[in-house]
């Protein structure tokens, strides 16, 4: 099966750029529109596009389902972990200022970057998991059944 030559070449070119753009949206999120959620969706789009063009097996070779599950959990744990760290430092849950008590605003900055990283990881995982769940369903009717 070597159909859709243009699609395959363009996809290969685009996947890298989409991932790069995802990182841009992720880390530039505190200065411009964007942040963890958008970045996570864009990141997932790169893999979903790859899966759509090259097939589910190929993309699951790159990104096995078990890793997707772990990522979903890891992002949430990272988010909550920052909050717990704030608690251990003697402040309220998610009081990022505690990360740098002498410069509260610096602490806020550090905190939100980690929080957004957690959001990004989880959203990436969830989006890919949803795609896997739908794409992985065997079709009710095979091509020969028509």
């Amino acid at each position, binding site marked *: 099966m070597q159909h859709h030559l243009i699609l395959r070449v363009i996809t290969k070119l685009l996947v890298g750029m989409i991932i790069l753009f995802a990182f841009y949206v992720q880390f530039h999120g505190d200065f411009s529109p964007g942040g963890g959620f958008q970045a996570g969706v864009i990141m997932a789009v790169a893999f979903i596009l790859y899966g759509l063009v090259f097939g589910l097996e190929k993309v699951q070779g790159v990104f096995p389902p078990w890793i997707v599950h*772990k990522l979903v*959990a890891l992002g949430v744990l990272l988010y*909550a972990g920052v909050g*717990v760290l704030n608690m251990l430092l*003697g402040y309220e849950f998610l009081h990022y200022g505690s990360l740098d008590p002498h410069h509260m605003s*610096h602490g806020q900055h550090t905190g939100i970057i980690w929080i957004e990283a957690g959001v990004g990881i989880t959203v990436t995982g969830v989006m890919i998991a949803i795609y896997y769940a739908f794409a992985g369903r065997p079709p009710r009717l095979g091509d020969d059944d028509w």
Partner: protein
Amino acid sequence: MATATEVHHTALTLTDHLPILQILIPFCTAPLIVFFGSRSLAWPMAFISSLLSLIIATTLLVSVSDGSYISYHLGGWAPPVGIEYRVDAANAFVLFLIAATATVVMPFALKSVAHEIPKRNHTLFYACFMLCITGLMGVVITGDAFNVFVFLEISSLSTYVLVSQGSHRDKRALTAAYDYLIMGTIGATFFVIGIGFLYMTTGTLNMADMADRLQGQGDNRTVQAAFAFIVVGMGLKVAMYPLHLWLPAAYNYAPSAVTTFLAATATKAAIYVIIRFMFTVFQPDFVFDTHILIWIIGPLALLAMFAASLIAIFQTNFKRMLAYSSIAQIGYMMLGVAMFSTTGLTATMVHLFNHGITKAVLFMGVGALMLRAGTTFYDRIAGMGRVMPLTGAAIVIGGLSLIGVPGTAGFISKWVLVQAAFEQDLWWLALIIVASSLLAVIYVWRVVEALYLQEPHPDAIHKEAPMLMVAPMWVAAIACLYFGLDTRFILDAAATAAEGLMAGSAGMAEISTAAAAAATDH
């Protein structure tokens, strides 16, 4: 750039963090279970987490039992700007019910889940269970109106998944979960529309601040519409008659452990939210002026007590019968609200708790019967009381409590409800309450008759349920008896909660004065 400033901060201690830990512990357990992905670790983690929740909930309940409250500011942002967790007598009571039920159900779940759900789903099942607990407790603990919606969604989404897990035994669980999803989503949407209207009117999401700013809004149509949306939306989650259509199927087809937990907690948390909004956010006077209690909530509650009980009588399946009986019992709780008195609300709070433990016993009994008889149709569980004496006896105790026989927990709540009726010289209402309890006698008798007075079905496994199932069942059954005899704890807690609620937002004076001070500054 900020310059270095002197830090004046007293480190918070573990005690200060209790309100957030109440939510955080089950919440973090869910991703941890998924992250480790170990089937053998999932259950112990879930159990330890619910046990810790129970310890925290008990501590919170004790510390607010004098009518005070605890406020926790998330992220250090003071309300009304930040999200606030506010624990007072009313919600500490519901938190305790949720945590206690979770802790009792967990040991029961081990065998029951192993029997009813395929192995590969176990880790995710327990993760969902933890999220469900998180959501329900979050709905109850938060003092932020929008946060209620967020937690409501967490609990609802995980509940849909949990209900659908019954599909490995009966495919109809999928349609049940789907129905619940549609109804629950409509309910949540209505609720959030109501919150939106309130936000439009008041410009705040903090409940106490909202209550303060709503005063003097009088005939504002937006506020009235918000009230209508919130009551109908939460009414769907409560399964308030006639918005109950999702409940029988969801309870019937969900795995036994899930049904036990949901029946004892989910609708109760929703009732708490309705009460909280009626009496704290909207003032009691506002609710009274809309006449909704007399003309809508009250009559529907009475209808539920009779219609649902009658349907329960004609069921042929034990589990489905209990689901309809739950709808009837929700009627009693709403009736307590509709009476619009401190005693009435006390009855609601007491029944919330007592019905929770009663249904926990009965649904655990259902789970045990399911394990041995395979199904809970009356003809199949025939005679099982004789071959499973411990399970049978627990079911009888639960049944008596459901009827409201003196000496059981169910009696206390109905007694307070009847007292509330007499307080307002509504003797006919007292008669109606007693009459509807008689209907409960009929449907409970049908179960007892099937369990004891018939020959055991040959296809059933003639063996007592495993100890891990019987023990939690008996813990709940003994709680049923204990709270029927020693009523001090429960009546005091419920009365404190009811007094706080009937006082409207007066108990939230601290924020009101702060908001007033801020208003004069501008």
